[in-house]
C-alpha cells in the first residue's frame, strides 16, 4: 500500500474492518456523493468509460498542476468507486496520482476480479483516468 495517499489508505483500512460485504457496498454507495458530479449534458463519447454495463463518465483535468476529477455513473457502485478514486487523487499532482495502483478496489473487498474486461467497469474507469492523466502530463 506504499503508493496510496493518506486519505485512500485510511479508507482502505476502514473498509477492511467491515466484515460483511453488503455493509461495505453500502458504505461505498455513500462515497458516491464524494464525486464532483459531471453533469449529464457533459456526457460525451469521449467521457464515456467503455465496456461498463451501464453508463459511466469521467473527466480529468489538470489545472495549475493539480488534478480536477469529475465523474458520474448510473450504477452507484461505480460512482462510489469514482468517489474513492476522487478522494485519492483530487488535487494531487498527476505524477503522484499515477503511482496509485488499482488494487485498492480489491483490497477494500469490493471487487473480486481485476481482469480488464466488460464485467469490470471499475478497471476500465481506472485505466481511462490514468491514461488521460498520462496524456496530460506528457
Amino acid at each position: 500500500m506504499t503508493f496510496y495517499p493518506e486519505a485512500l489508505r485510511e479508507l482502505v483500512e476502514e473498509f477492511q474492518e467491515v466484515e460483511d460485504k453488503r455493509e461495505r457496498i453500502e458504505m461505498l454507495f455513500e462515497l458516491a456523493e464524494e464525486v464532483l458530479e459531471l453533469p449529464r449534458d457533459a456526457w460525451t463519447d469521449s467521457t464515456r468509460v467503455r465496456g461498463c454495463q451501464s453508463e459511466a463518465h469521467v473527466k480529468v483535468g489538470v489545472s495549475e498542476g493539480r488534478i480536477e476529477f469529475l465523474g458520474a455513473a448510473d450504477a452507484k457502485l461505480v460512482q462510489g468507486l469514482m468517489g474513492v478514486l476522487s478522494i485519492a487523487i483530487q488535487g494531487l499532482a498527476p505524477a503522484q496520482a499515477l503511482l496509485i495502483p488499482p488494487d485498492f478496489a480489491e483490497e477494500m473487498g469490493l471487487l473480486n476480479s481485476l481482469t480488464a474486461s466488460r464485467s469490470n467497469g471499475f478497471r476500465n474507469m481506472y485505466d481511462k483516468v490514468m491514461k488521460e492523466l498520462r496524456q496530460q502530463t506528457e
Partner: protein
Amino acid sequence: MSLRDQFPILQRKVNGYPLVYLDNAATTQKPQVVLDAMNVYYSQSNANVHRAVHTLAGEATDGYESCRTKLKERFNASKVIITSGTTEAINLVAHAWGRANLSAGDAIVLTEMEHHSDIVPWQMLAEERGVEIRYVPVTQHFTLDMEAFTHSLEGAKLVCVVHTSNVLGVRNPLEDIIAQSHAAGAKVLIDAAQGVPHATVDFEAFGADFMAFSAHKMCGPTGIGALLVQPDAFEQMQPFMGGGDMIETVSIEGSTYQTNEHKFEAGTPRIAEAIGWSAALDWMESFDLDAEHERMVGIARWVAGELRKLGMAVYGRHDDDDAAVVSFLHPTINSEDMAHLLDARGYAVRTGHHCAQPLLHRLGITGTVRASFYVYNTREEAEGLVAELKEIVEKFA
C-alpha cells in the same frame, strides 16, 4: 444421493453465504460424474483419436465417438457434428451451408429475439454476399409477431430462430414456424442453446434442418457443442475449416474430403470434453426432465409474480413450455448495483444485455437483471432471492 448433492460447487460459500447459483442461462453447473469421467480419461486413456492402433487411442476414439452416438440417440438425429459450442455451430452453418447455397438477392429470416450468435454470423454473410436479412419483430407480449413472420417468408431460403429466448424464457411456436418455412421452401435453423436444457427434442420429428446447442448449458463441460443436421442439408454443406481428420486425401494438387461428420471436425477434436458431455448426457437420463421443468417454471412464475409486487418490471410470460428465466428491472435501482448487493449475500444473477441487444432495443431498455433456474435450484433459494430483493428495494429504492 439427491440430485442437488451431486453438484460439488453447490456446497460453496460466497462472501460468507451459501452460493445460490441463478445464472444457469449463462452456464450450468456440472455434476460430479462429469468431472469423474474427464478425470478418468485424462488419467487413464488420454490419447489422440482416429488413425492409430494403440490401446489408448482406441479407448479415446470410443470415448469421443460415444458422445456423438449418445447425441444421436437423445435427439433422434442421423448427423451430429461436434463443434466448440452453439456459436461455432451457427457459424458453421453460415459458412458450410450458407456460402454454398445463398447468393445475392436471397433472403434470410431472423427474429429480433435472437442471441447475437444467431445474428452476427448472418450479418457477416449478408455483407459479404449481398444476402438480405429480414427481422421478425417481437410484440409487446414478448412473442414473435407471427403475422410478420408469415409475410417475411416470401422468397426466403433460410429461417433462423431461437428455440427459447435467453432473456425472456419465451419458447417460440417452432412447430408452426418450421411448417410454414418448409411450405415456403426455406430451410430452418434452430438455436436451441436454451431449449435443449429444458426439453427433450426429437430432431427427426421436429423437422428442423439444423439445430445448434452447447454442452455447458446442459451440465456438460465448456468448449463443446453440437450441430444436428438433416441428411439432405448435410449433403449441401461444403467444408468449413480445413486440416486434421476432415480429409480423405491431401496432395499438392488438391484434397478430397471425408463424407461423414468428420468432414466438419478439423483438427484434434475436443476429446475430454466429448467424454465429459457423454457422461452429462447419461446423467440427464437419470431424472425426469419434464417433471423438473414443470417444477422450475413453477418457481420462475412465482418469482415473477413476487417481483411485480415489489414494483419490478418483469420481461417474460412464464408459460408452461417457457424456460425458468426471470428478467426484471427496478424503476430506480440500477441493475448492476442490484447484482452486487445480491452477490454480497451469495446470489449469482446476471445483468447486462445478455447478448441480445436488438431484443432489448425493441423492449426499450438496455439491460435486465436475470435470474435463471435449473434442476438443482430449490424453492427455498427462490424464496431467499425474493426476500433479498424485498430488502434491497426497501432500503435503496
